[in-house]
């Protein structure tokens, strides 16, 4: 960390800017939780209905509750108390426990009972009917149940209200004990609550469920009872809690791990702080972009976004690892920039395809990623270098890394291994049985299996509507919908009798059509006629004649009532069930027929198709699967386009076909390996696996680009190795943590990316470098001077006579322990600046003041850094000569007790070669250097290199000494 004033000012400025932006963002930030944002946009009416159903539909808002922990009677009491305590709640539209309380019916609706009850369809209110009814009522009165009826008998002697209420009960009634719903064993009292909030709004669902728990605790005075709440709403609350808990644990673990890793890698706290700045910038930029372009950030986008920062952190790591005393951080940044930029661009392209996926959540993700990666890349390029202290250690000197590199470089890389791998992967993908893709949305749910099972069981006990099948009827208005529904009744009854369904429910069961109501109304006798009939009927009953005044009044009133509209019923507490079944849209009405217990889907389908136009059987499962498939196809196409774009970008950046292939190979192979592994392990792939594959590919591209770019300079190679090692370790750490998550989605991504990181790292190392080393003579990336480059142009072996300047600087560098030649002479590596495999000479045979003779076998070594295209060209014999000169100079200085002055090779003359390549020469090379002229600041040497007595090369070289 640079301590200069401008640097500190920049640091503070940056930090403040981040804080300010961060505060601004989080002030306005709305974190949404509607999971439908991650579902694809619907294109067919079926799909549109599906999404409405999932979020807003009847079944999705129903919470099923069970109370257990005491004797049935106590449970029934508590069920009643609970239900009545909740009846006032604003969070619930409806809470029932099966109790059919006549008191619950509001007065206004009592008057409608004659129009709602089916009695008048087949029966007139004549004296015979009334007589029969009254006789029965009299007996009822004498029976033990009599006192129950007594209070409303005057108003409703024919018990129309009771009939209406019975009609409104679900067809498949759950088991009853003590007049409330119980499960078949009688161990649990069952209740249903329908929330006002849709299932996919975890916040409001949580509030509702908290209210349930609180109310229950106040009702449960003994403290022994236990309440179970189950349903989509409760699941989303549970999952949100878990996700949040996990995210926190993960975030903490990742942060701690990252800090430790950085400290190990760079051994300075400054590095930790510095690398956190581009990361923070990335986070803030991502959030800013999403909150500006979208209304709310989805929780999942946030979670994914922050894992993607695992990619962004690579950028400052690369910069830090490539630091060295020789060049300023800005220069390092500049030289890294093309590679870095290519990496950023390619990842951004891959994620930008999500913008066209048609999924809002994924578009948010793309926006977040592009903004954050761009911010990280740009801040690493332009801001971070100004803060880095240029006098840190050079990782290129690390011997450990050098050894590691050599060991990796010496690994055999047979071509056939790659081909075999490809064939193996393709074979596994094609031949292993099992679905490739996961189409079932419900498999994505992180809800534990046992909770799902319990929910299903409770719903089966209660006969709540089937979650999968429903009939959808579209009609221009309420009345038309009701008429249509009524017309379907006979067929639905038949289906029920045949056992294809256990029951059904639709709006017309609650509200008859206006026509029917009016027909019934017409049958109502006027007051005078009714009075007469009643008097006749009362004749031989024990009832007093004046008692039924209220009844006559009610009938008279009912004759004048306008038909009960759906709208009016909706307002009443009984109308809550209606909302689910009849939905009003702008210029049409959707009516649903829900089923309880579908046993024969084929019969249902037949019925639906023969029911006429406007009737659609909705299979939620198949609609959701088609949705997923469609989304996936679209995504795959856009990914294909992205891949082409990517190849184009890389081709433009690297310009050499072979290099492009080398860079793309690890990523392509890794993707194949991942797909084969997943498929071979029997894991069907989901959208999230795809996201993970893209992420892994992006990382692979980064690693490959950097390794490729490291070219031939061993120091550069080591720095790159360090950078990529740290990057991959940190990424692996983050995603390995994810892989340990409880949530299937996170686990999928974590595993896939972890495997991808390992595979990409190894393949990038192995594939980007050829066996041996690269030629220094290859043209380098556009505009980038390769650090430590030697010759600038390919050398024609036969006609080298012109001056070929080199820019090699023979700095005095601390020599680290290296391979030493076992002579009484000091090891050559201590005499010359060339280290490791770059020290080409091995044994000094003899030397004197004028000349030196050295033998060496390094020309045969496969790790000779001057090799290219699997050979060592003769032109490199110049280097042998130059090194011999340096050894001679050093030995001379040492014998005088001085240190060798650094010298620069400034010219080569009259160089002639008598062979093309030298790596196939069996015996040792003999290098002779003779000092022709030793001036004040310059030396002239001639050199000869021979092999088994035959001359290979000779020439003259001039060296200028530095002071």
């Amino acid at each position, binding site marked *: 960390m640079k301590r200069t004033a401008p640097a500190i000012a920049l640091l503070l400025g940056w930090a403040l800017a981040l804080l300010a932006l961060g505060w601004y963002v989080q002030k306005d930030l709305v974190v949404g939780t509607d999971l439908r944002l991650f579902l694809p946009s619907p294109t067919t009416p079926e799909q549109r209905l599906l999404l409405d159903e999932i979020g807003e539909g009847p079944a999705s808002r129903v919470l099923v509750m069970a109370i257990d922990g005491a004797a049935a*009677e106590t449970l*029934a009491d508590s069920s009643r108390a609970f239900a009545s305590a909740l009846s006032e709640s604003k969070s619930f539209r409806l809470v029932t426990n099966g109790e059919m309380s006549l008191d619950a019916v509001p007065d206004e609706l009592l008057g409608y009972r004659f129009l709602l009850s089916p009695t008048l369809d087949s029966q007139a209110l004549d004296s015979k009917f009334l007589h029969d009814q009254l006789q*029965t009522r*009299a*007996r009822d*009165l*004498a*029976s*033990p*149940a*009599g*006192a*129950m009826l*007594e*209070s409303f*008998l*005057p108003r409703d002697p024919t018990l129309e209200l009771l009939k209406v209420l019975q009609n409104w009960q679900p067809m498949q009634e759950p088991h*009853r*004990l*003590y*007049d409330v719903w119980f499960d078949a064993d009688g161990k649990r009292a069952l209740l249903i609550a329908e929330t006002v909030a849709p299932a996919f709004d975890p916040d409001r669902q949580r509030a509702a469920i908290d209210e349930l728990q609180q109310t229950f605790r106040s009702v449960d005075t003994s403290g022994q009872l236990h309440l179970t709440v189950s349903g989509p709403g409760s699941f989303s609350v549970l999952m949100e809690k878990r996700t949040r808990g996990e995210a926190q644990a993960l975030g903490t673990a990742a942060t701690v791990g990252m800090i430790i890793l950085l400290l190990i890698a760079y051994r300075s706290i400054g590095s930790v702080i510095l690398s956190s700045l581009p990361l923070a910038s990335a986070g803030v930029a991502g959030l800013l972009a999403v909150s500006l372009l979208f209304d709310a950030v989805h929780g999942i986008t946030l979670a994914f976004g922050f894992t993607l920062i695992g990619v962004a952190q690579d950028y400052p790591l690369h910069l830090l690892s490539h630091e060295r005393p020789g060049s300023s951080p800005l220069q390092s940044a500049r030289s890294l920039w093309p590679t870095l930029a290519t990496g950023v661009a390619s990842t951004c392209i891959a994620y930008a395809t999500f913008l066209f996926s048609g999924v809002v959540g994924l578009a948010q993700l793309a926006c977040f990623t592009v903004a954050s990666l761009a911010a990280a890349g740009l801040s690493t390029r332009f801001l971070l270098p100004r803060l880095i202290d240029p006098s840190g250690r050079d990782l290129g000197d690390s011997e450990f890394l050098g050894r590691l590199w050599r060991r990796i470089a010496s690994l055999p890389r047979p071509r056939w291994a790659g081909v075999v791998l490809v064939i193996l992967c393709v074979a596994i993908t094609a031949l292993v049985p099992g679905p490739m893709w996961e189409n079932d949305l419900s498999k994505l749910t992180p809800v534990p299996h046992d909770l799902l099972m319990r929910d299903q069981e409770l719903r089966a006990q209660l006969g709540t509507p089937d979650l999968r099948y429903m009939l959808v009827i579209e009609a221009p208005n309420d009345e038309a919908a009701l008429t249509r529904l009524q017309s379907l009744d006979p067929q639905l009854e038949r289906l029920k009798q045949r056992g294809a369904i256990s029951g059904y429910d639709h709006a017309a069961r609650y509200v008859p059509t206006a026509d029917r109501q009016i027909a019934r109304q017409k049958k109502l006798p006027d007051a005078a006629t009714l009075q007469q009939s009643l008097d006749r009927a009362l004749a031989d009953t*024990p*009832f*007093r*004649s004046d*008692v039924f005044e209220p009844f006559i009044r009610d009938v008279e009133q009912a004759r004048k009532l306008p038909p009960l509209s759906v709208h009016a019923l909706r307002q009443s507490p009984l109308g809550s069930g209606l909302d689910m079944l009849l939905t009003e849209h702008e210029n049409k009405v959707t009516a649903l027929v829900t089923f309880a217990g579908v046993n024969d889907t084929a019969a249902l389908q037949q019925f639906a198709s023969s029911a006429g136009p406007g009737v659609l059987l909705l299979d939620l499962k198949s609609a959701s699967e088609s949705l997923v498939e469609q989304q996936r196809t679209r995504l795959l196409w856009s990914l294909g386009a992205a891949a082409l774009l990517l190849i184009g970008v890389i081709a433009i950046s690297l310009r050499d076909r072979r290099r492009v292939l080398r860079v793309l190979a690890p990523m392509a192979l890794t993707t194949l390996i991942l797909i084969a592994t997943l498929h071979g392990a029997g894991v069907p792939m989901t959208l999230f696996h795809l996201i993970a594959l893209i992420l892994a590919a992006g990382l692979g591209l980064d690693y490959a680009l950097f390794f490729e770019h490291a070219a031939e300079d061993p120091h550069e190679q080591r720095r790159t190795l360090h950078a990529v090692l740290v990057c991959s370790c940190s990424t692996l750490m983050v995603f390995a943590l994810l892989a340990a998550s409880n949530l299937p989605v996170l686990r999928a991504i974590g595993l896939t990316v972890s495997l991808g990181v390992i595979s990409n790292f190894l393949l990038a190392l192995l594939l980007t470098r050829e066996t041996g080393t690269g030629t220094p003579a290859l043209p380098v990336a556009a505009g980038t001077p390769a650090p430590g480059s030697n010759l600038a142009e390919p050398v024609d072996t036969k006609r080298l006579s012109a001056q070929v300047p080199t820019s090699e600087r023979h700095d005095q560098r601390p020599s680290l322990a290296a391979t030493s030649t076992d002579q009484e002479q000091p090891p050559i590596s201590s005499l010359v600046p060339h280290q490791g495999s770059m020290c080409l000479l091995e044994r000094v045979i003899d030397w004197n003041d004028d000349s030196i003779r050295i033998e060496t076998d390094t020309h045969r070594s496969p790790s000779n850094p001057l090799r290219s295209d699997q050979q060592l060209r003769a032109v490199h014999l110049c280097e042998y000569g130059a090194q011999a000169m340096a050894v001679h100079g050093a030995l001379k200085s040492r014998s005088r007790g001085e240190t060798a002055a650094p010298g620069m090779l400034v010219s080569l003359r009259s160089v002639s070669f008598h062979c093309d390549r030298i790596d196939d020469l069996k015996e040792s090379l003999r290098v002779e250097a003779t000092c022709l002229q030793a001036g004040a600041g310059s030396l002239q040497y001639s050199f000869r290199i021979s092999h088994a007595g035959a001359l290979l090369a000779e020439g003259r070289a001039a060296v200028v000494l530095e002071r």
Partner: protein
Amino acid sequence: MLLPTLAPMAAQLDAADAKTLISQLAKPTPATIDFSEIRFSPLLKQPLIVSGTLGYQGSTSLDRHVTRPYRETTEIRGDSVLVRREGEPERSFGLKRAPELQGLLSAFTSLLAGDHAAVEREFTIDAAGDSSAWRILLAPRDARLSRRVKLIRIEGRNDAPRCFSIIGDNNGASVMLLGATAHAELPKPVTREWLERFCSQPNE
């Protein structure tokens, strides 16, 4: 209230005696008792009279067979009630829906079991008289029940209850004559006052 019109009884019994009294009422199961029920209601011109037999099999199991003037069977098992009447479909409902029935059931069965504690749990007991002619007044403790059932009055001689009256709200009442009393000759029309006098007679 009807209490002031009652014929004065011999000394009020204290708690211990009430307990003894009730325990003496215990009947072995199964027991069959003839009954005749007179139902009064503000809706009715004249009271309804049905008669038949009561079958008692245990604390939560009671049958009421009406044989005159029509046939009807009510079976109470635990908490569910099943009503079967000739010429009509079966009906069933939960006991909780009929608090009076509940009251009847618990009072009746507790007395037949001689279970003083059970009675004490559900009702406040007010006993008077001696073993030859006694009267027990039960007032329900449960709020819901007391809304419908104001009072249960049981009068009897020795170890046999003769009248079992449920006085409900709104001027409704039901008087059950049990055992031999069930076959007593009733005037036409039978009034509540007559029944009270009849039930509280010390001899006969």
